[in-house]
């Protein structure tokens, strides 16, 4: 079966060990975590994780069940099953000479990115968007030297007024 990209949202008890239980489940079963993001929610006793993995339909069903079985996990949802919004943030530190400055400014405008730090020899740029946009922006840098790159990993939320917390 074909491997597809899945965005898994997980609500977990905000306790020590929760993250390692989830990471352990992936490594023990040979699943790959492509990217991962964790932070507390408006209910501070709960953290929300967004995790991207590539696997086939049968595996993803099993994976969701295994995650749900973990005692710390409050709820699990594969966001890619329904309409959803995803965003990622990129921080890019670029080395640039005088000639490249205008080019970078132009590209940041096109992508609606922002320059958030300026020095004599470089810019740091911030960009938010879906993964394709982030990748396109990085691609557009061309010969401009990337000194450092940080990506948040994907964040996702379903469309409409349903909440992962209400489903419980």
């Amino acid at each position, binding site marked *: 079966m074909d491997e597809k990209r899945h965005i898994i949202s997980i609500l977990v008890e905000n306790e020590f060990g929760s993250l390692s239980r989830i990471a352990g489940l992936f490594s023990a079963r040979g699943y790959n975590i492509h990217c991962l993001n964790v932070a507390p929610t408006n209910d501070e006793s709960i953290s929300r994780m967004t995790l991207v993995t590539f696997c086939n339909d049968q595996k993803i069903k*099993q994976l969701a069940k295994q995650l749900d079985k973990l005692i710390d996990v409050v709820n699990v949802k594969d966001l890619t099953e329904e309409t959803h919004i995803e965003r990622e943030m990129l921080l890019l530190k670029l080395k640039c000479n005088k000639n490249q400055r205008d080019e970078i400014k132009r590209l940041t405008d096109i992508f609606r990115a922002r320059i958030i730090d300026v020095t004599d020899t470089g810019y740091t740029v911030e960009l938010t968007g879906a993964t394709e946009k982030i990748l396109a922006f990085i691609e557009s840098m061309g010969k401009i030297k990337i000194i450092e790159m940080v990506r948040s990993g994907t964040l996702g939320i379903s469309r409409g007024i349903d909440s992962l917390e209400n489903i419980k």
Partner: protein
Amino acid sequence: MKLSGSQIIIECLKKEGVEFIFGYPGGAVLHIYDALFGDKKIKHILTRHEQGATHAADGYARACGKPGVVLVTSGPGITNCVTGLATAHMDSVPMIIISGQVSREYVGSDAFQEADATGITRPVTKHNFLVDSRESIAEVFKKAFIIATTGRPGPVLIDIPKDLTDPKVKINFEYPKKVKLRSYKAPISESKSKIDEAAKLLASAKKPMIYAGGGVILGNAHKELAALVKNIGYPITNTLMGLGCYPATDNQFLGMLGMHGTYEANMAMHDCDVLLAVGARFDDRVTGDTSKFCPSAKIIHIDVDPSSISKIIEVDLSLVGETSKILRDLNKAVKPYLKNINKSALKRWWTQIDKWRTKKCLSYKTSKTIIKPQSVIETLYEITKGDAYVTSDVGQHQMWAAQYYKFDKPNRWINSGGLGTMGFGLPAAMGAQLAYPKSEVICVTGEASILMCIQELATCLQYRLPIKVITLNNRYMGMVRQWQEFFYEGRYAMSYMEAIPDFVQLASSFGHIGIKIEKPSELKSKLQEAMNLKDRLVFVDIITDQEENVYPMIKSGQAHNEMHLSPTGKDTELA
């Protein structure tokens, strides 16, 4: 009531009705042991190794259904428990393991006897806790017992830093009646319509088969299962873990299935058109080649664990929930459809099964000069009238015990099915004997397995546990040798047991009685003599046929209808 952390732990155990703690003291749990000193209600069983403690608690839980409790110290205390935890976790056995941890101020400093207990045990427990305050001890215990014993059961570890058990610091204690476990899901119950759909499908079968596993025993659903099977008149097979959940002597029972299952059970699996799986998890030792598993069957799966559904084999209909309740509901739902059952097709199916039975796949060549291992189990069955608690280690003896001892009742057959842990049998027998002091408890083992937890013979003497250790001594790691014969052209690399101890002397040096049996003619009388010594542990060393193999056998990656029924070579008989 103001109590210290240690006293709180003991009180929590009492509130949960714990009778036994299996354990071994050490620095980080000395406060707890001090609080236990002189206690009249809870009996502490001092094993000779922490692995023995976990297997003993496991055997206790499997025999009587109550959670087994283990108390060990930090560092090597808890690392020695890892095999026992993995064993219990694989077979879904409810257990509570309390491990001491170094005081909070030393955690993470590589202190003496420090080990990351929750980290090490995370993959081999259903859940684990590192207690971080005195105030939370009672709540953690309450949660641990709920988690260990409900849903699909399993071992739960509670790691407690030593400073929290300090006898000088006392706090108010009240055992919570309820705890908040928002993220722990109780088994869901299935809708009437889904159960009805299953009933209809079941009744539509022309060649039905029921495949029941350990979940029936764990879920205490054997009565409900038997009621359904009798009501509907279908054939049934059991997994290794399920033996005893349906009476083996009943005519509808086809024996165990899988790698060393019977011809009739495996053939019926292969040919059936509707399969009802109950509390079983389609283990690789059961399915063989999954692409050839029950090729023409619609599959209904009843299980308490949603993650078991369609994990290995995609099923057509799943019923998730407590096995006993679902079986009861299904039995009710099936009644109106009984008249739809195609009686003549079912009769033809039974005729076919009876034909398969005539193969007598469990027959073996008898001998007057050398004891056949199969005959030992048959004789044991005869002497104990099939009513003993039988534990086993892992290997050929385990398979022979499973094949030739006909278990009519649940909880009588105690073995490490999932993890396959050698060394499990003797300590597990201790747990079973403590749960049922008046019953006959037998540990069927081999000369290799028994040496892996032999130290527990000392525990047996201390608590006067009259276990009968039946060693099928073939001077080989039998199953390893069998595989080497089949798959490595008879190169017996490291599977010959040189320097085997004199088990009779060994038993007597531990304060027990040892008996050696070498001739087929004395097998029955000497086994009887051993069983008659009701109040003593008797170690029976039986010299058996060295190169006997376990048959039938489905080799890895083959299908249910590709069994080998007799030795490879000339008289190889492929089913």
